[in-house]
């Protein structure tokens, strides 16, 4: 890649992130309800109106009554200094709130994506066009798992592997052993989804002339599938992986909830519920960054899998 292209990529990535944080910032201000009231209710466990006098200290402290533009500039200015603000509810810097939860979330989602790929590829290589029964079984399995809700998968895994078989812990925290079930909870439906996409492509590619050519060269069936067909068939799934990674980070909250695991999904839900604007914006910023990085990786992966793109990319 040329320097210009890299600079362009970096600048656009930063722009995407600032835009994401800005949109989130304004979207949250647009939600009906007063932030100071929410904070007071959160501190007291009530749902009532408060007098202006009671709300004044909070309004003053967080500048809720400042003009929106002032609040926004203050926020964006902070972003460029690496300051995401202070959580309204936890009284800690947002960087710290997110920092503590980011690694468990990334581990969970990256592992889930990797496992999903392994499952999807295994399913594709082993079942597509392997006789009617095996093919249908594979396709049915993918259709079934792709449509399974995470909550259901998580609870079934929990009941089978934690309660009945006692293999994995229920409240596993961030330990490797304790991460197995949360990872599978996210990976199984995703594997079904990736598998479906790959399967269609795989079936079509298997009928291409170059596959026949490869076979006539005496290549083994598995070799053909792995070296030639798969290369073509995985491209759509790779594209989707960039999206999947971002979606998983934010959507991991269900797995986190079931298995008592920390993570930014959980923090995001709480922060949205409590109108903790800096925390919500901060998390959106991080998720946006993950999307950006993931899409960059997708571009690179494309180049590796499809040499035509690599050649074109150097232009």
């Amino acid at each position, binding site marked *: 890649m040329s320097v210009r292209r890299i600079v362009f990529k970096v600048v656009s990535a930063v722009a995407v992130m600032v835009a994401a944080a800005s949109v989130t910032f304004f979207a949250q201000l647009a*939600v*009906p*309800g*007063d*932030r100071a*009231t*929410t904070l*007071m*209710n*959160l*501190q*007291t*466990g*009530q*749902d*009532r*109106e*408060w*007098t202006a006098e*009671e709300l004044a*200290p909070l309004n003053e402290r967080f500048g809720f009554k400042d003009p929106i533009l002032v609040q926004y500039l203050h926020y964006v200015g902070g972003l460029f200094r690496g300051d995401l603000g202070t959580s309204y*509810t*936890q*009284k*800690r810097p947002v960087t710290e*709130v997110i920092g*503590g*939860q980011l690694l*468990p979330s990334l581990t969970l989602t990256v592992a889930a994506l990797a496992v999903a790929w392994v499952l999807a590829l295994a399913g594709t290589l082993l079942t597509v066009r392997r006789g009617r029964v095996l093919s249908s079984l594979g396709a049915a399995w993918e259709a079934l798992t792709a449509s399974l*809700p995470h*909550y*259901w998968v998580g*609870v*079934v895994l*929990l*009941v089978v592997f*934690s*309660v*009945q078989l*006692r293999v994995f*812990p*229920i*409240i596993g*925290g*961030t330990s490797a052993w304790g991460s197995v079930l949360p990872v599978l909870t996210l990976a199984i439906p995703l594997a079904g989804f990736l598998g479906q996409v790959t399967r269609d492509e795989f079936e079509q590619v298997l009928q291409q002339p170059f596959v026949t050519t490869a076979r006539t060269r005496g290549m083994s069936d598995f070799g053909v599938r792995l070296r030639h067909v798969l290369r073509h068939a995985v491209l759509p799934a790779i594209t989707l992986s960039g999206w999947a990674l971002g979606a998983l980070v934010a959507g991991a909250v269900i797995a*986190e*909830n*079931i*298995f*008592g*695991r*920390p*993570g930014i999904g*959980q*923090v995001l839900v*709480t922060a*949205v*519920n*409590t*109108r903790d604007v800096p925390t919500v914006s901060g998390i959106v910023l991080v998720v946006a960054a993950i999307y950006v990085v993931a899409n960059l990786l997708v571009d690179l992966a494309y180049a590796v899998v499809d040499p035509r793109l690599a050649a074109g990319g150097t232009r």
Partner: protein
Amino acid sequence: MTRRNRVALATVAVLASGSLAACGGAAAEAGGEPQTGGTIIYGHVQEPPCIFGGWIQQAYISRQVLDGLVTLADDGSVQPWLATKWTVSSDGLRYTFTLKDGVKFTDGTPVDAEAVAWNFDLWENKKGNSTAKVSIDPYYKSATAVDATHVQIDLNKPFPLFLTLITQGYFGIQSPTAYKGRSEQENCEKPIGSGGFTVKEWKHGQEVVLAKNPAYNSWPATAKHQGPAIVDEVRWKFVADGVARYASLSTGESHVVYEVPTVNWKDAQSRYQTIRYITPGKPVSFFINTKAGPFTDKLVRQAFAYGADRKAAVEAGFHGVIPYEGNPAVSQATPGYNAEVAKAYAYDPAKAEQLLDQAGWARGANGIRAKDGTPLTIKLVYGAGFIFTQEGATVLQVLQEQWKKVGFDVKLIPATQAEQWGGKYSDPSTFDATPSYWTSPSPSILWIVWRPSLPDSPNGSNRSFYNNDTLSTVIQQANSEPDTAKANALYGQAQQIIQDDAAGVGLYTQNSTYAVARNLKDFWLEKSQGEPVFSDAYFTK
């Protein structure tokens, strides 16, 4: 996800009872030899933003770290804690507490009269704890240190329940030195008290690790043993999912769990020690908007109360675990509870129809009643997922069907926490009925909730917008009445007024349910609002 939830719970129930049959010998291990040390793993639900604060979730955990001046015994009497004794002046205005000698905060500073007075000032005058404040407003006047071990609290008017109210966890005494000398974040995460435990570490999103305070010497008179905590640590874990939380007991990953799913309650009773605590204070009952909409007419409010079989719906929805509460003002666990009041408005659809006819609401073609062209639509706003569990929402759906039969078109409006706490439904135009609860160990909760909202002293907690001068006078008389029997008669009268006017409609009691492993003894809940106590608990072998 709603239905899935229930299916999943049922799955666990079935599978769990299956494994019970497989290992029936487990019960035999009860009553073994007491052990010292060990770590109790506690499965809680909600993670509070700070350890200390005015939300009950915060009182639960700050109770482990902070001691109070006095505590409430199971018989409802107030017992010594940091204060060994106290005197009340004959006019009922001055309370003088004598503090236990030689008690130190875990930062080494003394728990003296100065510190206690400073804490009262913090809650009441410096926004330190709004629930502590509202509990003793407007009776509290000032707190003064007389000497090192005597603290004096003056009231504006006699308020005998003052002592009962300060037994709540919101009144936990913190070290002024630590509070003033540390950052807000440190005070939020690791408040310094003189309690049986200290906050060792807060792994956000996961758990709070509480470590035994080895120098503990200020246990309450109600403690089950004398001395520091017997276990070394309590790991207070946040496991939001009910299926996982309950299942973690069966695998030995936890020893105590909070909020046992009601479908699992019978199973829990057969396998573990169980505790069901009915919370005193305002039960889960509907506030009825008396200021705007169809409920401005008392007859319509009464018809609403008669129009659905609330008792049957609650018993079915919660599998018989959570009791129905017909008294909208205070729950059956509250001192001064008027049981007669609770019997009013038993399900009577004919009576409901008659009242609606009388009020001029006639049946329309679709079965929904209308008056002057306006349909009888009721906006029922409920906090989904935080005030109302899924089971609670099911109860509302059952009631909705029954109300429809008598001609109410009830719209169930689930409100998110952000909406409800952000004030989206505070205005009288936004709702007609909304259920909520407020825990309190005393019937003086009536004053907090039903005090008239006046221009110079608005009362945001009066969500029925119900201003009744007679009611206000009766409650104030009750609050200042020194004779308990007379006070309770007055509180009973207040409950009667609210019920007669149908300014609220009863539903069910707010409960805390716990399941405890059989090898853990002397885990208990204190009386004022069911805060769990771990400092007496020990394992048996």
